């Protein structure tokens, strides 16, 4: 492993980027919580972030994959709706707002945690530099 005294900063940054992408995903779910048609006659399918890491290189977190939540679409009775089937039921997105809000909280806290690490590491390097005084 390459020794680089500024590596913790890069790791914190990867965390920040992953969490901001995660929040983007959550906001997409919340915004589409009522979208009954994605253009192909299906309702919006909830998406989720998949975070991966490489333990050998210790180079932070990656968020390259966005996976779809394959759980079943709930149906509601709405006979006048353009997407309603012959019995009057409409498939709605498999997004549950309370879950999204919890995930948003977790993501925001994780973002905050990464900035805390970044800030503390910066202070640590500055203390080291004090030795040069």
């Amino acid at each position: 492993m390459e020794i680089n005294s500024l590596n913790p900063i890069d790791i914190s940054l990867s965390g920040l980027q992953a969490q901001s992408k995660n929040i983007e995903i959550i906001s997409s779910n919340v915004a589409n919580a009522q979208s009954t048609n994605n253009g192909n006659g299906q309702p919006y399918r909830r998406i989720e972030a998949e975070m991966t890491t490489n333990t050998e290189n210790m180079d932070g977190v990656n968020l390259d994959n966005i996976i779809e939540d394959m759980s079943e679409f709930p149906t509601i009775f709405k006979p006048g709706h353009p997407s309603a089937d012959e019995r009057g039921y409409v498939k709605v997105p498999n997004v549950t707002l309370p879950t999204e809000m919890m995930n948003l909280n977790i993501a925001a806290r994780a973002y905050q945690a990464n900035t805390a690490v970044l800030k503390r590491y910066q202070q640590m390097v500055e203390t080291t530099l004090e030795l040069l005084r």
Partner: protein
Amino acid sequence: MSKVNDIFDVIEVGIRAESLRQQTIANNVANLQTPGYHRVDVKFQDVLAKAMESSEPVDLDNVETEVYCPNETQVKSNGNDVSLETEVGQMVKNNLRHKTYVRLLQKKYQQIELAMNIK
């Protein structure tokens, strides 16, 4: 292998490179929303390392800092690849390096002063 280069010159080149990098970061942040903009960075460490490795003494005035497009970050839908997080991180690193150079310079001056006081 030691070089005849004056430590002051080395630090000066470093500080100059860091201020140029600060400028590129400011430019990147200013263009955060500009469609099609690609972030720029300064290639300095590699250039300096190459110069220091060569067997002849190097003329540090010729160590040219290079501005280039790294194209490493993800491109957004508007063709822009600036991420605010990356820029903030670069700025923190830049700040720390700058501080290091300035402290080294300060230390060097202290040493000179110390040497002058000995009678």
